[in-house]
């Protein structure tokens, strides 16, 4: 049937090409480990089930657990031909322990679903408080996680902790974690929550891959830091949490600052405050000095002394005016008196003249006014004399 005789190399190359074209890459295979051995840090084993055997090799694996014969695992890898040994084998990239095949598929399914719904979106991430007044902790009361967290918080910045003890693996864990998140939110005292547990098998971490826990974390109004397993473990809770810490200790460091830093910060603020106040004080006292040194306050009398002078001058002028007026009045009165006096008929009596009057009191002015024998009256300076006319001549 074959017309051509192939060399081993040629036929192997042909098989290799055929397998490559089959594109058996990144496939998940479930089975049981047998013939496990380690050589220079690499794993070699068979994966088998009741029907078949698949050779496997895993280079430089870093697994948090030890592979053993008889272990049920799910592996992910590419199938290739190894020419020199004339075999095909799977180059393993990832191993999940236990009957997790379905679990893993479910994990991927939930992750994609929640991602599509936007539960992992950055915009939903809440900011952690700079300094929490109380930290809620959802974890096992007996695990290593709680001890690690307490240790770090006590060292960095002791803050009251509100423990919500839950189981972190097994069937009941999901319900308890969801409930704990709800109750801490209702309590309201904690302003940040750490949800977590220490390392474990992938199966152990399953509660943190559940849709229920993911949604509870999403719905929490208190920011949540996830701290699940080891650095390399990523759970759905990590994706939905407001912050992810690689370990519980790291979560504790994330939620509280170092007390010494805070102290320095506060002292820094205080000195800034004092400096601002001193600047203002200087400004104010300069301003005040400026006012105090003004003429008005320093020599207040000077301000009104001019006015006083002015008043005094006015007063003087008034007095002078009154004097002048009085003087003028006086001389005017004197003149008037003089004039009055000079027109007073009795004044001539002073000079030795006398006034004669008829008996009827009229002035005696003419010879014709009297007859011989008439009585007349003569007024002199110091009295009056009654006389009788003896003769008259014209």
């Amino acid at each position: 049937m074959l017309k051509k005789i192939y060399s081993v190399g040629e036929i192997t190359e042909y098989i290799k090409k055929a397998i490559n074209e089959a594109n058996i890459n990144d496939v998940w295979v479930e089975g049981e480990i047998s013939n496990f051995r380690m050589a220079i840090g690499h794993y070699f084993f068979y994966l088998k089930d009741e029907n078949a055997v698949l050779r496997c090799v895993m280079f430089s694996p870093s697994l948090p657990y030890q592979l053993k014969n008889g272990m049920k695992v799910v592996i992910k890898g590419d199938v290739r031909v190894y020419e020199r040994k004339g075999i095909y084998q799977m180059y393993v990239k990832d191993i999940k322990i236990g009957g997790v095949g379905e679990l893993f598929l479910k994990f991927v399914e939930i992750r994609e679903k929640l991602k599509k719904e936007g539960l992992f979106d950055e915009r939903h991430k809440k900011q952690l408080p700079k300094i929490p007044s109380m930290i809620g902790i959802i974890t096992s009361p007996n695990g290593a996680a709680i001890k690690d967290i307490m240790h770090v918080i006590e060292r960095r910045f002791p803050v009251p902790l509100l423990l919500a003890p839950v189981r972190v693996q097994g069937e009941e864990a999901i319900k308890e974690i969801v409930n704990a998140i709800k109750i801490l939110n209702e309590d309201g005292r904690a302003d940040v929550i750490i949800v977590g547990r220490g390392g474990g098998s992938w199966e152990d971490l399953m509660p943190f891959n559940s849709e229920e826990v993911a949604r509870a974390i999403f719905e929490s109004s208190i920011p949540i830091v996830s701290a699940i397993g080891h650095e390399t473990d990523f759970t759905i809770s990590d994706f939905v949490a407001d912050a992810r810490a690689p370990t519980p200790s790291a979560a504790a460091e994330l939620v509280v600052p170092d007390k010494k830093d805070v102290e320095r910060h506060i002292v820094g603020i205080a000195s800034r405050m004092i400096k601002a106040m001193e600047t203002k004080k200087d400004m104010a006292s300069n301003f005040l000095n400026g006012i105090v040194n003004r003429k008005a306050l320093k020599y207040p009398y000077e301000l009104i002394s001019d006015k006083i002078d002015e008043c005094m001058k006015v007063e003087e002028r008034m007095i002078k005016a009154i004097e002048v007026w009085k003087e003028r009045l006086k001389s005017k009165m004197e003149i008037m008196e003089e004039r009055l006096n000079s027109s007073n008929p009795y004044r001539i009596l002073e000079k030795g003249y006398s006034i004669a009057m008829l008996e009827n009191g009229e002035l005696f002015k003419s010879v014709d006014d009297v007859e011989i024998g008439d009585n007349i009256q003569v007024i002199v300076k110091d009295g009056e004399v009654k006389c009788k006319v003896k003769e008259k001549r014209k």
Partner: protein
Amino acid sequence: MQGEGEKEIKFEEALEKLEKITEELENGNLGLDEMIKKFEEGVQLFKLCKKKLQEAELKIEKLMEELK
């Protein structure tokens, strides 16, 4: 298992307030009277923060025994 009941200002709030007051003081736009008032408030907050820092201690309270 309930808290002490006294509703006092949280450390973070006190610190934020202190920072805000300091900024206001530094801006220097306030009158002297107001500045003195703010400064006094700031000093009180500073004391409070210091006190809270000094008094900070790890207290552990267990919530919801009823869970189990």
